[in-house]
């Protein structure tokens, strides 16, 4: 079965390579071209692996507007004061040195017939294979009273960088005994434990700097990732500080007034001193512009991350709708490697191996109190399907929690080296 599929993939790869060849030659360009849009955990990894493993047989262009990439993963640790903002920033210099053509611009359109990507700067970039890894954007009107123009008053801080710094500054400026509110997003969203790790890190900061402050979380969901672990940790470390209002208590009936700095939950108005609004999410806009989304996300084939809409357009990470994997940096990185292997096979005839995926999400509840959840996945006809998984237990020893946190730091240096070289 496995052998047959490998053979089948190999054969179709050769066929695809021979079909792609004339376009490439007609272009007067000797090498097949891959364009990657988005330089995060999915895109940077895919660009790096295709360039590295094809040994320059493929021309790889990475389009990413920012010159310095600030990871969204670990940004909560900056909010908690455990990491510095500089710990989260990564440049694209090593990727460029490794042969990836890094273009700092916005991709604003995709012409799938002409197989080109248009950049905000005006140029068009041709591709044989296009990989979109644009992360997330927010669904308009998802939280009553909030839109992007309010993100300075009530930051989302759900893309790494300036928003993260802004939220931290607002928390630091809270008056003594003030109130921090979070509006948590509905499923599915980037980093399922992320909002709750953030609550933990905000509490960690406030406990040390503003111990009489309060935290309110309005959540449209009845439960969340690692819920038992977080709730145990909140009771142990931050007793009485955090009020989580789930769906049952009207957590989904929420509106905000960024000018008045109020949050209304189930009809009750609360004045807040800092407010983090994390609205419902959708695929990064370029996926929609490319016409490969259905609803909010881009459906993909599990074997190679190609879109259901177009075999030459791939979508990685948060923007994809792939099945059982959570939207996380780890998942995007894992999907990128499967995709890179398939794209390289299609363009150069190199061996294509069966898709294997994995994910682990670490979260920090308090200093040196780390927990994790993870799973392995495989490609089936219909989706990426979970094979096996594990989760930290409640009541673990302090030594194990510390080892888990140190492991997450090791993972951070590992994955960022794997993305950026």
């Amino acid at each position, binding site marked *: 079965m496995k052998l047959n599929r490998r053979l089948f993939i190999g054969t179709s790869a050769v066929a695809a390579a021979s079909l792609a060849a004339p376009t490439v030659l007609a272009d007067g360009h000797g090498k097949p071209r891959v364009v990657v849009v988005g330089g995060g955990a999915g895109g940077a990894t895919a660009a790096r692996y295709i360039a590295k493993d094809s040994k320059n047989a493929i021309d790889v262009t990475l389009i990413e507007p920012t010159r310095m990439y600030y990871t969204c993963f670990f940004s909560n640790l900056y909010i908690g004061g455990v990491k510095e903002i500089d710990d989260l920033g990564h440049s694209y210099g090593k990727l460029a040195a490794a042969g990836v053509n890094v273009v700092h611009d916005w991709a604003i359109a995709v012409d799938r017939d002409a197989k080109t990507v248009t950049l905000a700067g005006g140029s068009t970039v041709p591709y044989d294979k296009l990989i979109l890894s644009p992360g997330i954007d927010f669904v308009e009107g998802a939280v009553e009273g909030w839109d992007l123009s309010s993100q300075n008053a009530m930051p989302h801080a759900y893309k790494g960088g300036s928003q993260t710094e802004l939220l931290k500054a607002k928390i630091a400026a809270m008056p003594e005994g003030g109130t921090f509110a979070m509006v948590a997003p509905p499923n599915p969203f980037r980093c399922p434990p992320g909002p709750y790790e953030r609550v933990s890190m905000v509490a960690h900061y406030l406990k040390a700097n503003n111990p009489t402050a309060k935290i309110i979380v309005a959540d449209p969901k009845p439960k969340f990732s690692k819920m038992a672990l977080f709730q145990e940790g909140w009771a142990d470390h931050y007793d009485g500080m955090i009020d989580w209002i789930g769906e049952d208590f009207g957590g989904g009936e929420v509106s905000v007034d960024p000018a008045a700095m109020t949050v209304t939950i189930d009809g009750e108005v609360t004045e807040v001193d800092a407010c983090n609004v994390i609205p419902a999410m959708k695929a990064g806009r370029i996926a929609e512009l490319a016409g490969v989304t259905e609803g909010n996300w881009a459906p993909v084939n599990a074997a190679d991350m190609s879109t259901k809409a177009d075999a030459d357009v791939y979508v990685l990470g948060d923007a994809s709708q792939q099945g059982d994997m959570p939207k996380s940096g780890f998942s995007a990185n*894992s999907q990128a490697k499967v995709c890179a292997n398939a794209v390289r096979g299609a363009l150069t005839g190199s061996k294509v191996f069966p898709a294997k995926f994995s994910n*682990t999400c670490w979260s920090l509840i308090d200093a040196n109190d780390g927990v994790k959840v993870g799973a392995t996945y495989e490609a089936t006809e219909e989706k990426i399907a979970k094979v*096996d*998984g*594990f989760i930290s237990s409640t009541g673990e020893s302090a030594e194990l929690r510390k*080892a888990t946190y140190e492991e997450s730091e090791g*993972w951070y240096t*590992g994955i960022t080296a794997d993305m950026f070289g």
Partner: protein
Amino acid sequence: MTKRWLQSLPSVLAAVFAAGVTWAEQIGDAEAGAEVFTKCIGCHQVGDGATDKIGPHLNGVFGRAAGANDGYRYSPSMKRAGDDGLVWTAETLGAYIENPRALVSKTRMSFRGIKDPVDRANVLAYLRIFSDNPSDLPEAEPTALATDHDIDPAILALEGDPEYGEYLASECLTCHKSDGTSDGIPSITLWPTEDFVVAMHAYKRKLRPHPVMQMMAGRLNDEEIAALAAYFQGLD
């Protein structure tokens, strides 16, 4: 008392076999084990008045977490194994004394291991006398023997495909660094192939404790483990 239990073993074993459980190794002979233990006494003491020497004393070792004997300075590797949940049972101790590094990569116990399964069973039977936790009922943890740890030589002899190994290794490199540095997560580069294969199979059999690694190794077949070993061995 222990002797009597040992003597009644055949009937206990017969009952267990009838219940459908297979034991690859039998509970050994404690007297013969005392003889085997002479290999260990350069570093380890056991029995009345035993104290830590080069290695920790071994009173009450069954049922104890790895690296948990207060006052003894263990290797970071052993402490980590204990934090991850490694508990000494007949099964894990058997695997450890068969090939210490297969279970704990950077253990300070520089000992080649006892390859003869009968010798291993005997020395475990001897150590069991000095562990009262929970009892010396042979079918109950931590003193029950469950599986044969020996890896089929045919598995060790498999020639891995380094190209497949490179693809599979990309999954490892999300956490483990390719430059070999270890920082919260152990290094996996430049391992002797056999140690690598034995360690991965120890995770697969859940003898090594770490849940992520048990999960990752759990879905690798023998050829895939060989392919990974071939790839990592060739890394500069």
